[in-house]
């Protein structure tokens, strides 16, 4: 990695077979689910637009998997890797995507997934709104003397929202247990990052706020997982913020309705060579952790799990008109998820 400036280099830790396999499984199921979603859209069998994270699965999975269930994660809009990483079940994801009442949010989340049992406490649709919300959650954990950490995840395009600077300021000022986790995938919707941000990396800006930072290879799931583990331990112990920038690349279009024709095919091909799932597979095989048969077994199991979850979701009850109207105010819980108890 070039252009790391004065950032920290976080040593990549050794990883046990079980953890690497779990990370691999989660990346595979993420890709299978998003691929199925995309195929259903092509065939006009599904309504919900998607912002897929193909090629970036290592970031969300490594990040989510490295956190404890009661750490809070505010994910991005891109893909489902962060939810899967944090442990959200396919059944729950698809019940919400089909807007069915059996979902953790009673089908009222849709794309804006949440699962309060897993520290997934909400996704904002207006980019950057969660800088402040995550700072508030981090202040809350500090005031309550809890050792939870809070992660706010965003893209380099969203780094232009002014609240990022404000949130870094309060996080440093109040020594909040808040981790800024940015994925630099070189694209912001239909335009390259070079039209959005004035420097190739955003993390060095943290230095101006006295926040330590590091740039991490976002296509290496072990590097992501181990960086997050290291940073979480530090943040828990020292209770101060950290800025992580994951370098990756969006090899597909911005969303399901665009063909990506504005992207440079050589770049896409070069990054496809660095596919995180293929790299993880190679490592598992080279280190003799699994056999080729087991690799294809993992893929088949993922396909079956996604298919079953979609099938189940289709059969679930739709909300009635009354159920749609309910739940604007508290006291009318419509979801199947647990109420937050802190």
């Amino acid at each position, binding site marked *: 990695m070039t252009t790391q400036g004065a950032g920290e280099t976080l040593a990549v830790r050794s990883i046990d077979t079980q953890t690497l396999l779990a990370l691999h499984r989660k990346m595979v199921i993420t890709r299978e689910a998003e691929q199925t979603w995309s195929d259903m859209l092509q065939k006009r069998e599904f309504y919900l637009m998607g912002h897929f994270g193909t090629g970036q699965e290592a970031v969300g999975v490594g990040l989510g998997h490295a956190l404890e269930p009661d750490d809070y994660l505010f994910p991005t809009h891109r893909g489902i890797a962060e939810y899967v990483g944090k442990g959200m079940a396919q059944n729950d994801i698809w019940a919400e995507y089909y807007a069915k009442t059996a979902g953790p949010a009673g089908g009222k989340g849709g794309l804006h997934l949440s699962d309060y049992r897993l520290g997934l406490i909400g996704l904002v649709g207006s980019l950057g709104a969660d800088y402040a*919300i995550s700072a508030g959650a981090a202040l809350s954990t500090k005031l309550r003397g809890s050792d939870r950490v809070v992660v706010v995840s965003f893209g380099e395009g969203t780094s232009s929202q002014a609240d990022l600077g404000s949130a870094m300021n309060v996080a440093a000022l109040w020594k909040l247990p808040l981790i800024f986790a940015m994925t630099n995938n070189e694209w912001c919707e239909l335009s390259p990052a070079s039209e959005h941000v004035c420097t190739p990396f955003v993390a060095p800006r943290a230095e101006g706020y006295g926040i330590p930072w590091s740039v991490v290879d976002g296509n290496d799931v072990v590097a992501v997982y181990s960086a997050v583990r290291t940073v979480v331990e530090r943040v828990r112990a020292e209770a101060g913020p950290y800025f992580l920038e994951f370098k990756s690349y969006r090899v597909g279009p911005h969303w399901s309705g665009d063909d990506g024709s504005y992207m440079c095919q050589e770049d896409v091909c070069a990054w496809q060579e660095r596919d995180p799932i293929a790299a993880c597979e190679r490592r598992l095989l080279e280190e003799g952790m699994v056999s080729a048969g087991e690799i294809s077994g993992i893929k088949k199991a993922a396909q079956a799990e996604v298919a079953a979850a979609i099938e189940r979701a289709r059969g679930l009850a739709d909300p009635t008109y009354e159920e749609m109207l309910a739940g604007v105010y*508290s006291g009318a819980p419509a979801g199947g998820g647990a109420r937050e108890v802190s």
Partner: protein
Amino acid sequence: MAEMPYAAAVNRALAEELARDERVVVLGEDVRAGMFGTTSGLVQRFGEERVINTPIWENGIAGMALGLAITGMRPVAEIMFADFMYLAMDEIANQIASWTYMTGGQTSVPLVIRTAGGAGFAIGYNHSQVTEASFLGPPGLKVVAPSNAADACGLLKSAVRDDDPVLVFEHKFLYFVPQEVPDEEFLVPLGKANVLRSGDDVTMVAIGSMVGKALEAAGTLAADGISVEVIDPRTLVPLDQETIFGSVARTGRLVTVEEGRKRGSVGSEIAAEAAEKIFGSLKAPVARVAAPDIPVPPGPLAESMYVPSAERIVETVRRLVG
């Protein structure tokens, strides 16, 4: 019953709620010192962890309140001027309002945002508006506008205890007016209007700083033989339609009075509801007394012409009845 200024009544409500529930925290710009006295002295009693000075970041004050509220705290945030509520619009209108619904009730959003609106200092523009009308729309919010010291105390206490987000629009010109407040602890329920004067000819719904002027106008009109019922809704969302429209059903006339501008006003909403629900009881068109649709002008003279006066209210009612 002792007299205390509105600002002191707000301060008392906050102190009582901070003492009652340790999940309550107060946050905002300079809340430790307290610009208008509403939060002064609280930090000495409750400490810096409960009374938190924030940097100048209105969207952040609202957003951090949301983050606190969905993780077990009960924040009372302050936006120093009601004009600056617009800087927090994304968090308030897009996030806070919809969070309970969006999460299917996995969480509630027990937060309060207090702010100070209104003319009185003659500086115009960004330090003089009342902005409550802009917050009637986003579903999921409750909106309160106390018109006197006792309501400022009792409504705020109810707001802090409520599990939904409540916006409290205080009025900075009322802050310094001493008024009677009960000595014992009390709550004023949300969603309940207050009939301040009964009458038979006209129902006058007055909001916040206009309640005093509406009562003054009603006194003048009584001398002319026009009997005016004055209602302070106190809570704008949810609105106590039963009390207001019950009164209109008797009087047949409805006048709304507010300090805000006319287009998209609180009165616009009440008038539209009246047209839909009680059109048959109306003997005259609904009248809205409000500020003109211009920015709040600077200078004491322009300000006094901008803000509705008791005389304007009287003229409006005379036209309606005459």
